[in-house]
């Protein structure tokens, strides 16, 4: 959960990007990192394999500035998407304040999305969180590709909670900030 330090007047919140392998979680974070002003961000840490597949996590701190005298900072994490890294995924969800589920819109990845979402629910439950109550948004990524499922189809399969959803092309930044902004607002609303 968020860390609120009343003495140094700081609030730290943790947002995790979740989703199946190669759905674009790291691409989201890298885009944000590239666009945010230098004074608002810390170092981007990627624990990845030589082929750029996330091995443990990517991490980026994002300073929001001062809100009512509290220095507010988001810690953005991605999980490794590949199925066999579940132990790592579970660890990263520890203390999470908000979740972005990145779905790969391609028709052939539909099953992988469904599986990953079920895995998210399961891992959240193990930490005592409920997907219905935690700040949670869904991003339908890769909308620029030719073989994609319709948003209605994706919604029917993935968004039964009717949470905020966004279409995105993370590689060119479309929908990336909208997604982050939505989850960040939900997290802060939960605090105040």
């Amino acid at each position: 959960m968020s860390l609120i330090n009343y003495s140094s007047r700081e609030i730290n919140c943790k947002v995790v990007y979740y989703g199946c392998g190669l759905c674009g979680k790291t691409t989201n974070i890298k885009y944000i990192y590239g666009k945010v002003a230098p004074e608002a961000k810390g170092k981007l840490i990627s624990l990845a394999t030589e082929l750029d597949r996330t091995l443990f996590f990517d991490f980026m701190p994002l300073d929001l500035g001062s809100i009512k005298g509290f220095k507010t900072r988001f810690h953005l994490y991605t999980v490794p998407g590949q199925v066999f890294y579940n132990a790592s995924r579970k660890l990263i969800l520890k203390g999470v304040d908000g979740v972005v589920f990145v779905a790969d819109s391609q028709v052939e990845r539909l099953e992988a999305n469904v599986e990953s979402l079920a895995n998210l629910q399961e891992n959240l439950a193990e930490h005592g969180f409920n997907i219905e109550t935690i700040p949670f948004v869904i991003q339908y990524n890769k909308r620029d590709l030719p073989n994609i499922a319709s948003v209605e189809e994706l919604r029917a399969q993935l968004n039964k909670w009717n949470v905020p959803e966004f279409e995105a092309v993370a590689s060119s930044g479309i929908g990336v900030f909208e997604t982050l902004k939505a989850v960040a607002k939900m997290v802060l609303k939960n605090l105040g």
Partner: protein
Amino acid sequence: MPENVNVFEDDFWAINEKLNQLLKSTNALSVLLIDKAGQLITTAGDISQLDTTSFASLSAADFAATSQLAMLVGEKEFATLFHQGEKQNIYVASIEARVMLAVIFDQRTTLGLVRVRVKQTVAELEKLFQNIFAKLEGAPSGQPAESAFGTDFASEAESELDNLFK
């Protein structure tokens, strides 16, 4: 929420005092207190050369991964971790399941001394954190933050978000 760590003024100074005592008694370079979700709570000593945000995130991940290793061999967790470098070393100890203490030290002290002093400090900090957690659990509807933030917190937060992503 079970993993919430909110630190209030009095507790904060009490914790800082313990960390400074530890720093002096071990002659270490710096001491960091980190929650297991990877967020820095407070530090003592010289951290001017250290990226503390990254340090906190990575050491929490390190600790979490090692705890899973512990379970694989039938242990609940490894209560301490030690990383040895050419010049600097890191010693990490778990406090009350939710928090950890990291000590960075060099050749001006020894692992043995750090280990002994950390053990004492962990015992003292455990008591402090038990009180903090008891306070949080006793707080009405688990929302001690409410009064401090006021009602317009959410709207001010929203406008900051808008500014950031302009």
